[in-house]
């Protein structure tokens, strides 16, 4: 009787969860093995979506995009956190300013950056040619060698404040005794960073990196708003390919198939990541 009452109370939440998560996931799975009329077709959709060269290219681009973004986001974010953890005049203001990229809506940031990097009208080319750094304007977003690094830079700019604020919170929870003990032992500032700060915030960095991996794998806004995956698919990542297949080409079944594949790959990546990290017990504690 008692357990039934409990079930009754969680039921609304369970129903919402089911409708919003389980049903779409299951329906995507069903779409991926059926055709437009709902007939089962086995793995035909998977074969059709894996065949074009663009799918491989998108996978490689996705890895480039996620890995490139995360390395710089974590490094830059952690350094910023260490800086903001020091006491100096104007620290409060600087902490607030650092957060700006994180709170600007993604689409606003992306559109603004797109104009700043524009070959003809962009302020970046204007400043660089005006000051003599560049002889002639560079097509940042149209040159195959610069377009992805530029997009990664924008993504890093957008998300490093998040890393910084999370790591900062971790740093502030380190008891002062540890620093004092380190100083008694004659540790320099960098030794403090290396032996006190980083080990203490490792769980935070781990969690944040996991979030960044998931966000990176899902991110559409910045790339779609700036290049739409172009030029010539140089910046096409899998989520955008799925979006294109479904909403620009009406190929819902193929899009579902690609989603399922992508979901599988993402699960594996996250699983390996968690496994590797839990294999080293947190010595920081």
């Amino acid at each position, binding site marked *: 009787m008692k357990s039934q009452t409990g079930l009754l109370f969680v039921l609304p939440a369970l129903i919402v969860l089911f409708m919003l998560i389980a049903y779409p996931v299951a329906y995507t799975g069903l779409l991926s093995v059926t055709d437009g009329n709902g007939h089962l077709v086995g793995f035909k959709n998977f074969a059709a979506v894996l065949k*074009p060269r663009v799918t491989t290219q998108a996978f490689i681009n996705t890895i480039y995009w996620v890995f490139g973004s995360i390395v710089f986001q974590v490094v830059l974010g952690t350094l910023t956190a260490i800086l903001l953890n020091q006491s100096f005049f104007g620290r409060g203001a600087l902490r607030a300013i650092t957060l700006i990229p994180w709170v600007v809506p993604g689409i606003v940031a992306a559109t603004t950056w797109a104009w700043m990097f524009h070959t003809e009208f962009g302020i970046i080319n204007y400043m660089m040619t005006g000051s003599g750094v560049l002889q002639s304007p560079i097509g940042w*977003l*149209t040159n195959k060698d610069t377009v992805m690094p530029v997009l990664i830079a924008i993504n890093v700019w957008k998300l490093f404040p998040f890393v910084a604020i999370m790591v900062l919170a971790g740093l502030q929870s380190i008891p002062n005794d540890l620093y004092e003990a380190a100083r008694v032992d004659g540790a320099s500032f960098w030794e403090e960073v290396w032996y006190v700060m980083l080990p203490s915030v490792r769980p935070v960095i781990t969690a944040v990196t996991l979030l960044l991996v998931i966000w990176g794998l899902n991110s559409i806004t910045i790339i779609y708003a700036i*290049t739409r995956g172009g*030029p*010539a698919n140089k910046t096409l990542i899998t989520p955008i390919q799925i979006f294109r297949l479904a909403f620009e080409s009406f190929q819902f079944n193929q899009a579902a198939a690609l989603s399922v594949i992508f979901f599988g790959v993402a699960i594996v990546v996250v699983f390996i990541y968690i496994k590797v990290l839990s294999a080293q017990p947190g010595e920081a504690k």
Partner: protein
Amino acid sequence: MRSKRTAALLALTVSALTLSTAAFAGEVVWWTPNWGEARAKELAGKFEAANPGITIKMEVTTSDGLPQRVLTALQSGGAPDIIEVQHGWVNGYAQNGLIIPLDDTIQDKDDYAKAAIDYVSWDGKLWAIPYRMETRAVVFNKADFKAAGLDPDHPPQTWKEFVDAATKLTGNGKSGFAITGGGEMGNTITGSLPYIWMNGGSIISDDMTTATVNQPAAVEAVTFYTDFLKKGLSPASTLENDGTAARRLFIAGAVSSYLGGQFDIPSIRTENPAIDIGIFQTPHPDGKETAGVLGGWSYIIPKDAKNPGEAKKFLQFMNTSENQGFFTDTFPVRISSQAQPRFNDPILAVFKSMLPFARPVPIHKNWVQISQAYFDGLQRIMLGDQTPQEAMDQANEEIQALLDS
């Protein structure tokens, strides 16, 4: 006792339900693009006055992301009663069973331009009522022409003359002719496909079984198009420019000509009144005819529309010769509407003269992916990754796979 209460409750529910349906019975939900908002309000008001009991609920849409929004609404089952969409999208909806045929709604079908009617027909039925049509022509800066020693009254007609003129116009920070190669894919399709057609080529064969984009006629046209960038006659930013960006460059004085539409004219006139605007037909190969992509908008009624009857009545009202001509932003599809004085502005004459040469893009269920494959090929050429022949060979292979699937 209990059953009585249940019955009462049931009765209450049923009457409440009927009430709410009654309240919505005469309401037509209409998605209309933002450019025609003021005119739409005026016509909706007139219709409501003439038809008591029917209310028109307008929802104003914007073009960015509209195809996705429409598709989501059509698939979700919660669609409005009328949506305005581009001609090219209609067939996809029809073939996926998302909209209803409108053969019983259209009046004076013979008065409609045949190319537009063909565009929204499939399987022997009419799936939309086309009301607006347009095609592109080259918009140019007359002062730049004079400065380059060209005669603005005799603009180039053939490809060769066109390239010569663009070469003379280029220099001192100005580009002669801006092609597009980025942003919204549709602009680049509209801008480059006509050259293939003029040259006697195509992207896919007429029976839609064979990809033909790597045939000599198509490759020659693609080379002609991309050479504007290769030879430096189009701005360095070409790969990130769509139609809007090309117009901005034109307004800023950075380019002397670009392929534009009549809807560009008002914004050029407001933003830079100093420019003396000229228009000429898109140049064609020597001895051949010009061509353009037929663009424009149609009304559709979704399969899940709540009040299709009232919606059809409203569409008939919107498409009387007078109202269609009043409502459209560019040319009306009804021939009789085109006689209205607002279409006699001399600057529209060239656009009007292009209409007979306008063609619909192929009506194939995979057309978006086919044009994407072609577009990617164009970008590979412009990036310097491949030669036109290599790029079109690859595109041809991808398009053939889409035709076979």
